[in-house]
């Protein structure tokens, strides 16, 4: 008997029934599941809109965001100034539009920094185990023992008030979370037999880690990343609110809120519009994060 004549495992009468007519990669399947969630898609649309706003700010803003005007101080929303003007007579709409740059940039860059530190650390800790794991995990425990915002404030204050330093501070403070997620996902992925098979084939450990484990920890890291962007935007707003982020007169949503608190009763629009912007973006990132989690891991639900 030759291999070709061995009975195939497909059911009789339906020769290729067990093989789908069109092949779909796990990624394509995840995209389809994500698109089947209207709430997550709505979040994605809002995020994309804000990215467009941030990129095209000079084209969209009706006024110069830092041009003051003595004749238009704390004017309520009107046809000329849709979101009113602030205490220096600057157009709030233009400042919210330009503020999107600081917020989106801070959210994305600080999460990239956090993932850049946390994911390799988690991959190494989870894959190597032993002392390497113990040392890295204790460092992470120590960092997580400090409240996130306190750590970020301390780091930002130490580095000096400026948007770049705020992003570094937020990134470093967020890194332990990524390390935890990446480590747990690595332990999970490395327990699969295909990782053992990769070793049995003669792959050196680093190649097993990079080629077989790393691609399989991307989903949880991606979910964590999306949710962390939301947290980072809040953190940037908080640091700016405290004067540690974007420096005046350049606009950021957090520093606008800071300035607005003195006029909450006389000019509530100064707080409402940047607050609304933060709320919308953060909510959208959280919705997308939840949608990604469901789409990437169909087992949980």
């Amino acid at each position, binding site marked *: 008997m030759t*291999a070709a004549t061995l009975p195939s495992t497909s059911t009789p009468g339906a020769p*290729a029934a*067990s093989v*789908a007519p069109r092949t779909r990669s796990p*990624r394509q399947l995840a995209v389809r599941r994500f698109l089947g969630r209207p709430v997550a898609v709505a979040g994605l649309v809002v995020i994309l809109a804000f990215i467009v706003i941030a990129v095209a700010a000079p084209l969209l803003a009706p006024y110069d965001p830092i041009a003051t005007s003595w004749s238009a101080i704390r004017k309520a929303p009107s046809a000329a100034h849709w979101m009113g003007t602030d205490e220096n007579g600057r157009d709030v709409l233009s400042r919210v539009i330009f503020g999107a740059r600081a917020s989106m940039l801070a959210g994305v860059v600080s999460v990239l920094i956090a993932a850049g530190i946390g994911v390799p650390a988690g991959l190494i800790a989870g894959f190597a185990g032993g002392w390497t794991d113990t040392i890295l995990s204790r460092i992470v425990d120590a960092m997580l023992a400090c409240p996130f915002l306190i750590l970020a404030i301390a780091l930002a204050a130490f580095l000096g008030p400026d948007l770049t330093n705020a992003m570094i501070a937020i990134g470093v403070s967020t890194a332990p979370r990524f390390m935890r997620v990446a480590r747990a996902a690595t332990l999970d992925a490395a327990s*699969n037999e295909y990782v053992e098979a990769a070793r*049995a*084939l003669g792959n050196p450990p680093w190649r097993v880690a990079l080629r077989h484990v790393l691609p399989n920890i991307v989903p949880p890291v991606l979910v964590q990343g999306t949710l962390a962007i939301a947290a980072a935007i809040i953190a940037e707003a908080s640091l700016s609110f405290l004067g540690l982020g974007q420096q005046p007169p350049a606009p950021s949503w957090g520093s606008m809120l800071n300035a607005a608190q003195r006029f909450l009763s006389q000019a509530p629009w100064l707080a409402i519009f940047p607050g609304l912007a933060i709320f919308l973006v953060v909510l959208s990132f959280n919705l997308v994060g939840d949608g990604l989690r469901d789409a990437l891991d169909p087992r949980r639900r």
Partner: protein
Amino acid sequence: MSHVLQVAGLKKHFTVTKGFPKPVTTIVRAVDGVDFAVQPAEAFGLVGESGCGKSTVARAALRLIEPDAGSVRFGDTDVLAARGGALRRLRRRMQIVFQDPYSSLNPRRTIGRTLAEPLSVHGIARGRAAREQAGALLAEVGLPETALDRYPHEFSGGQRQRIGIARALALQPELIVADEPVSALDVSVQAQVLLLLRELQSRRGLAFVFVSHDLGVVRWFCARVAVMYLGRIVEQGPVAEVFARPRHPYTRMLRDASPIPDPSQRGVLPRVVGEIPSAAAPPPGCHFHPRCPRATDRCTQEYPAWTDPDGHGFACHHPEPAG
């Protein structure tokens, strides 16, 4: 007599330290001195209950885990001393087929990529040539070439197990360690996969270390068998001999406990006495004595020596009568 694989005095102990403030160290003797040899083109079975250390032996023999003591020789190479390039060349000659077809294939890779990987790791073939070889491997295990561009989730358990076998064959090994290769499959699919394995064995002259808890499967597939209990081999010999006339009471218990597809034998299965004890605290003397109907005082004190009168060896003070 030349051996393809020779394992001697193999030990693997796992140390677990737990507890605070006074840590308690427990040593689990998963494998506690195992010797066996596999000849070229021979199917060698390794049977025993869950937790007896048979999978650990299989992995230590392939050096997927580092054993603590003993020696493993493959042909005339010392497996445990090999490193770097020498170890990689060894890996080319011995491969493994896993139990769980759902975790043994990387879900993010097409079948083609999975099958081409061993070829590129060892610099055998790349690109088009690798793809052609991968297609030939699929044909050899009875799958169509169109499977190359598909992902593991599109296949059934039996089909995935065939792909796992194809991956093991890619490097044209002399020995395949099969760790419960059909245990996770439906009975109907088991038979097909076993037929395929036997087919490959005779066509390619492959030697097998076949780990299983299913005596029926081992009886059918293997020429010789070793029975493991708590990290040690208690009986070893030709399959027909060992199962027809077991000398060790444990082998007899295992054999009598496995169902016989014969209605007239219905209800005569003997009660299996007790559970397998923890390998962290094996009973003193012969590990099997608490469950053994033939045990005496001697068995509680002294681990029986290995006796091998005629190629059918066992470790027991009071063996079942021969013949």
